[in-house]
């Protein structure tokens, strides 16, 4: 159904939708008002009743035009905001924060108002989603009725010219006389027509009266004069033209029963008006009534029997009763005008009662605009700040992480800076650019999805959900940057001093900054002006806080994913399952950095080649486990059984070993720089060719250890009474 937007702009669909929606109660109200007026002023003339009924059509037109224009303006504003957000999704970010702030400052009355607003918004959003269907159905009906209308006009036009028989000249003279009595200036022609069974009038500029062929045989001259008087009254009152306007109302508002009722009231009163004029002109109401009865008699005689079962609404009967009863025939236009004024005033009042809702929407858009300006300036400050910080820090890899929220211009500026400062090669720069632009577009798509959904739905839950989804997605994308950094680092062949962990930390910071600014929810909050008050506000805050935490977790886990989060589930089940998994997935080198491994039985676990930086092991069994070629820098071991554990060729710098039974551990050819052993029993361990510069062995049992080829320096601390040189340790200056 949304394909309709290809043919009709969304704003128009929305405006039509609201106009149709409001027309339901508007027209009903007008009809009720009309019924009340007609019932309470039942003594007023037909002319006055006709004016009131027609005025109610005008009132409906006025109501609906106002609704349409207002809705269209609102829809256009919304489209503008949509466009703004599409071009710069960051606008969104600030608003949510602001609205949260506002909520805190709201008093009870405002909260209550906001509560009502959100319900109204929910109703609105429901209808708005269904507008395309509604408009398509209405449009189809409109086309059908238009077709019928056009066909009718075509036939009427043929009636005007086809199968006519001209009448005696005396009739033209009679018409001229009657016309002058009515002060009717138009020239009216009269014909007999083979196409009609009843006398009728048509045409606006060149009106004609058509009599059926049977008329001249079945009716007397006086009868025909009465008929002509009635038809001249129609012409005098411009009824043909006004009836076409009325038909247009019927076509446009075909779906509304009240319109058909109003229309039938107008038709009835119109005939009454002409009856009044005709009776006045001919001066004999009984004769006039007889004429109508006679014409009807002729019609019934020509019609088939089936037609006799036609709707018995007593319309003609009532008309004739009215003609014969002169009480109701006073001609009082003033009354009608007063009544019309009442109806119009009532209607205008109703029409304007719609406007407050409309204004709510307006307010939303203006706030969005305001905060947009605000937000842009903040972004600029933020960017400068970031640049300064990164320059001071002189950390060439982490700069753009903080720029998560800046648009591509800022990113490219930064990229230039990076390249100037660090002479990054062109290829890497290009890669970085692509990666960042991809990231940006990915992020935009997600955010836009969120916002678009939000704008459409105007639904708190959906918006919060979508926004968080967008934020999460954005945070996930940050990993792309880390990858880029790592690629950059590898490419530049930087040494170990650039720590992955710093990058991760910066990534986290970036993510957090991103999240802080990524609260898309503001739109709703703007719209809702504070949603459901303090309670809801708290919930919302909680929700956002939770999601923030959530996303932080996601980031740390995602980061440690390269670092191993999904493996923890396996490793806590013990070494058997772990080793089995490693055998099956021998191409994967898991990253368990930054994890805490407690109370885990991992004897003979295979941890070879793995990343275990900053991993904390405590109260676990790692006896006979293999850390061969693993990277355990900065890891900590408390109360861990490490007997016969193998650290062959491992990176074990800056580690802490406390209270660990470590008999017969192999540290052969490992790097133990700056590691600390406290109260560890290292009896019979192997330190051959190990790098023990800066390593401390406090209160350790080093009996029967081999240190052949190990390298120590003046910072290496050995237990008292340990003769390092006798063990074959080389000391570097």
């Amino acid at each position, binding site marked *: 159904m949304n394909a309709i937007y290809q043919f009709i702009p969304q704003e128009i669909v929305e405006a039509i939708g609201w106009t149709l929606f409001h027309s339901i109660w508007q027209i009903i109200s007008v009809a009720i008002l009309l019924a009340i007026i007609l019932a309470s002023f039942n003594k007023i003339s037909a002319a006055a009743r006709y004016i009131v009924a027609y005025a109610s059509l005008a009132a409906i037109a006025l109501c609906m035009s106002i609704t349409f224009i207002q809705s269209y303006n609102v829809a256009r504003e919304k489209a503008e905001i949509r466009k703004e957000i599409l071009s710069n999704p960051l606008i969104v970010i600030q608003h949510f924060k602001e609205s949260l702030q506002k909520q805190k400052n709201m008093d009870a009355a405002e909260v209550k108002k906001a509560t009502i607003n959100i319900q109204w918004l929910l109703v609105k959003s429901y209808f708005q989603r269904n507008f395309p269907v509604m408009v398509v159905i209405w449009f189809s009906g409109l086309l059908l009725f238009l077709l*019928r*209308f056009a*066909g*009718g*006009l*075509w*036939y*009427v036009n*043929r*009636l005007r010219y*086809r*199968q006519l028989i001209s009448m005696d000249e005396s009739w033209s003279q009679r018409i001229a006389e009657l016309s002058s009595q009515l002060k009717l200036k138009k020239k009216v022609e009269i014909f007999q027509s*083979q*196409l*009609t*069974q*009843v*006398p*009728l*009038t*048509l045409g606006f500029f060149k009106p004609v009266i058509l009599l059926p062929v049977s008329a001249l045989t079945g009716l007397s001259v006086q009868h025909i004069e009465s*008929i002509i008087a*009635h*038809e001249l009254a*129609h012409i005098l009152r411009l*009824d*043909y033209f006004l*009836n*076409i306007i009325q*038909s247009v109302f019927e076509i446009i508002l075909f779906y509304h029963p009240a319109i058909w009722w109003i229309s039938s009231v107008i*038709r*009835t009163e119109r*005939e009454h008006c*002409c009856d009044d004029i005709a009776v006045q002109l001919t001066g004999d109401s*009984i004769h006039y*009534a*007889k004429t*109508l*009865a006679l*014409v*009807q*008699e002729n*019609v*019934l005689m*020509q019609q088939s029997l089936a*037609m*006799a*079962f*036609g*709707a*018995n*609404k*007593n*319309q*003609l*009967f009532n*008309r*004739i*009763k009215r003609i*014969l009863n002169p009480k109701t025939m006073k001609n009082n236009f003033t009354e009608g005008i007063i009544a019309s004024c009442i109806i119009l005033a009532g209607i205008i009042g109703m029409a304007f009662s719609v406007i407050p809702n409309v204004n709510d929407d307006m307010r939303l858009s203006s706030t969005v605009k305001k905060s947009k300006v605000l937000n842009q300036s903040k972004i600029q400050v933020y960017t400068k700040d970031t640049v300064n910080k990164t320059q001071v820090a002189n950390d060439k890899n982490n700069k753009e992480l903080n720029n998560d929220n800046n648009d591509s211009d800022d990113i490219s500026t930064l990229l230039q800076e990076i390249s100037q400062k660090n002479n990054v090669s062109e290829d890497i720069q290009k890669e970085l650019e692509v990666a960042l632009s991809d990231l940006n577009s990915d992020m935009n798509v997600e955010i836009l999805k969120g916002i678009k959904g939000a704008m459409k739905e105007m639904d708190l839950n959906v918006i919060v959900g979508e926004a968080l989804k967008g934020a999460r997605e954005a945070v996930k994308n940050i990993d792309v940057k880390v990858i880029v950094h790592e690629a950059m680092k590898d490419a530049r062949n930087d040494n170990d001093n650039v720590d992955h962990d710093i990058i991760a930390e910066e990534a986290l910071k970036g993510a957090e900054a991103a999240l802080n600014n990524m609260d898309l929810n503001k739109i709703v909050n703007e719209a809702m002006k504070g949603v459901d008050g303090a309670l809801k506000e708290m919930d919302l805050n909680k929700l956002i806080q939770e999601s923030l935490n959530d996303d932080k977790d996601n980031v740390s886990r995602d980061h440690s994913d390269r670092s191993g989060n999904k493996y923890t589930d396996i490793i806590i089940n013990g070494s058997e399952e772990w080793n089995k998994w490693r055998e099956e997935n021998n191409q994967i080198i898991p990253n368990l950095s930054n994890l805490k491994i407690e109370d885990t039985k991992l004897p003979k676990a295979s941890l070879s080649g793995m990343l275990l930086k900053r991993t904390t092991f405590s109260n676990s069994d790692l006896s006979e486990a293999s850390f061969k070629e693993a990277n355990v820098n900065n890891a900590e071991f408390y109360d861990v059984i490490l007997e016969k554990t193998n650290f062959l060729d491992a990176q074990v710098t800056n580690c802490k070993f406390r209270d660990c039974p470590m008999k017969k551990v192999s540290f052969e050819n490992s790097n133990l720089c700056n590691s600390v052993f406290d109260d560890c029993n290292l009896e019979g361990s192997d330190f051959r060719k190990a790098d023990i510069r800066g390593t401390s062995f406090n209160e350790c049992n080093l009996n029967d250890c081999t240190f052949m080829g190990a390298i120590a320096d003046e910072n290496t601390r050995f237990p008292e009474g340990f003769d390092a040189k006798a063990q074959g340790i080389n000391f570097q200056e």
Partner: protein
Amino acid sequence: MESIDKAPTSAELEILNLLWQKHPQTVKEIHETLMDKKDVGYTTTLKIMQNMATKGIVQRELNGKSHSYSPVLKMEETRGKLLDNFLENAFGGSASSLVMQVLGNKNTSRAELDKIKNLISQFEKGK
């Protein structure tokens, strides 16, 4: 509004079309042309054409031994009437609400008319 007298049926119109193209024609000639398009019995064609002559749509004249037929209705006129018929059927309802009729655009039943007559005669007596 009424339907047109002598309105030709679709079968009659088919024959009329042939007669408009060329006339006069005999039943045999018409039948042969019709046979090119569809299978019709000679008797059927003859009956239709006799019917048309009775309705006054065509006129018959003795031409030597055989009867030959010519159209009475003019082509434009007939087509116009058919269009009128069609429009009346399709849009008569719509049109009747677009013109100003003396009786209004609601149907009146015989019973209502009787009621009306009663009312009028009561009034006449009252006076």
